[in-house]
């Protein structure tokens, strides 16, 4: 009885709203029957975005977007609010999943040549969505509003300042004024919570509309190139012959993968929790070591490794060129073979990109170009003596911050060469010249060290030998 009433009510609502009539054909649109597990990354990205929306809305109930109070509100969310720690973790790992899934989706679409006719705009809206995801990732890191966030804003403003002609305005817009202050956080909050998500919703809608209009690209086959004159007719014929309704024939894989991903994100949030907040957002605390979240760490490495003098050009034209190349890709290769087997350069391109970003990420994680301000001191065992010029030189090696940039038997920074066995490579005169004159990445100590101090340092370095 009650089931009948419920069913009647559901039918009445459906009739008045027209849900089945509107959404039904969309859900049951035909897709190629062999579109299988390779095709789950797009819906997984959407799923990760929904996790971000849900967890973000929940966090907004307690987060205070004020420069003075955001840090303490985050402390409350993390340590006191029920489920607060879990929700922050969910939001953090959800963001990571979104970046990862959008990368995988893009890689799959590129390798399958699905950006070609007639799906050029699918690709282009996807590139814009990638940009929105990265903007949300970066602005989200700033909303953590600890010391790292404050200095990341300054770094962003400095990069914006390099834009020709309007750089100063963009930098001021980023800071919300001339310095980091009360206006800074609230702008990033508005961008992160309203502007970019609204754009993301709009472009996801457009992206999905384009998927419905042009259909899900069939898996590519070698020897079946895209010909704009015949492609649409061939695609229709393929669907007529062997197409399957998206729901549920194809959608079940998306659901299984998304639920698995949600489980993994939740597990990570429980086991590892959100990133711990750093020091308070006080710009007068100078001992800071700002680093971006993992998905932008590779770019942080790029900025450190660029040849001196090229940063200004790269900071502006690097991202611009990369974005432009991605956007115009469908027009560079609008037709022809889609199969990666016939497009080896596509495979090489993806492998190179992954290797490049992976290697930069690894080196960015270590940041060997940064001085090690907390290097462990050299022990008497390492120095080999407790008196005399060698000992005095070792003391100077630490006092003058040489150890911040040079390794001696595993202790010190990695900015400069490892000096553990420097005496096997350099003569005394070379050492003196390098200490006195410095180099591209080393200060010249000639004006600050006394002759006797240089002698001691050289004596210490000459004792660094295998023999």
């Amino acid at each position, binding site marked *: 009885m009650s089931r009948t009433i419920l069913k009647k009510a559901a039918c009445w609502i459906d009739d008045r709203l027209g849900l089945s009539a509107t959404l039904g054909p969309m859900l049951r649109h035909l897709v190629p029957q062999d579109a299988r597990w390779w095709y789950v990354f797009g819906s997984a990205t959407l799923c990760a975005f929904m996790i971000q929306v849900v967890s973000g809305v929940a966090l907004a109930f307690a987060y205070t977007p004020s420069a003075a109070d955001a840090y303490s509100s985050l402390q409350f969310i993390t340590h006191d609010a029920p489920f607060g720690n879990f929700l922050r973790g969910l939001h953090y790992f959800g963001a990571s999943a979104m970046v990862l899934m959008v990368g995988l989706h893009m890689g799959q679409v590129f390798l399958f040549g699905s950006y070609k006719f007639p799906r050029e705009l699918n690709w282009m809206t996807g590139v814009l969505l990638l940009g929105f995801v990265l903007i949300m990732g970066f602005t989200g890191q700033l909303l953590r509003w600890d010391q790292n966030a404050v200095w990341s804003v300054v770094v962003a403003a400095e990069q914006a300042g390099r834009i020709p002609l309007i750089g100063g305005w963009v930098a001021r817009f980023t800071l919300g004024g001339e310095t980091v202050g009360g206006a800074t956080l609230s702008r990033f909050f508005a961008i992160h919570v309203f502007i970019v998500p609204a754009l993301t919703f709009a472009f996801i809608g457009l992206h999905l509309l384009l998927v419905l209009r042009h259909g899900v690209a069939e898996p590519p086959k070698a020897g079946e190139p895209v010909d704009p004159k015949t492609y649409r007719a061939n695609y229709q014929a393929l669907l007529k012959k062997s197409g399957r309704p998206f729901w549920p024939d194809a959608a079940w894989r998306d659901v299984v993968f998304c639920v698995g991903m949600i489980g993994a994100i939740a597990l990570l949030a429980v086991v590892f929790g959100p990133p711990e907040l750093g020091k308070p957002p006080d710009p007068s605390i*100078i001992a800071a070591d700002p680093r971006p979240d993992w998905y932008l760490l590779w770019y942080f490495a790029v900025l450190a490794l660029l040849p001196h003098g090229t940063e200004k050009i790269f900071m502006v034209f690097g991202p611009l060129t990369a974005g432009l190349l991605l956007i115009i890709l469908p027009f560079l290769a609008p037709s022809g073979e889609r199969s990666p087997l016939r497009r080896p350069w596509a495979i090489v391109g993806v492998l190179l990109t992954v290797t490049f970003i992976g290697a930069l990420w690894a080196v960015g994680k270590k940041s060997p170009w940064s001085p090690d301000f907390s290097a462990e001191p050299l022990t008497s065992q390492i120095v080999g003596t407790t008196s005399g010029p060698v000992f005095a030189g070792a003391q100077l090696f630490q006092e003058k911050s040489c150890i911040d940039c040079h390794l001696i038997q595993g202790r010190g920074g990695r900015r400069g060469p490892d000096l553990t066995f420097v005496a096997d490579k350099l003569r005394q005169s070379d050492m003196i010249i390098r200490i006195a004159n410095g180099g591209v990445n080393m200060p010249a100590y000639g004006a600050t060290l006394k002759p006797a101090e240089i002698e001691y340092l050289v004596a210490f370095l000459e004792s660094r030998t295998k023999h």
Partner: protein
Amino acid sequence: MNESNPEPSQSCRESKRGEITRRIFLGRVSLALAGVGAAIVTLPMIGFILAPLYRKEPEVWRTVGSVGDFKVGETSSVEFLDSSPLPWAGMTAKTAAWLRRTGDRDFIAFAINCSHLGCPVRWQSSAGLFMCPCHGGVYYADGSVAAGPPPAPLARYPVRVWGGEVQIQTQPIKIQRS
């Protein structure tokens, strides 16, 4: 629903003859009016969002200590408030500088921001160097570039001695331009 439209869109194939019918006229007037309505709402919004671009902050002198607090030849960090912090700025209204006393009444105040990307440089007193934790920029005690990627010396704040007190004039964060 058809998954893939095999034909180019209709509007692309229709040719415009240039005649304005009542329907076209009403359509265009509606669009124009909608544009006016949207402008009434969005222009103030854009002005509000872009306001910081045009707001000139006053430059004010902030006392950072007495002359006697600083030894000749030494460099130490000092902190002070921005020129006109917003009431809800909290601790972000603070900023810092490296103050070097070079004579009886002579001081140099360096910005803490590395000229490369703005990270806070640290003074290594025993080495007589400023070092940046981000990308390894190094500066000598006078703020000139010693090593690494910084394209320019450390920026300086105007500094004066006023009635026995050392004062620094607030400045915008120095943004390097291309």
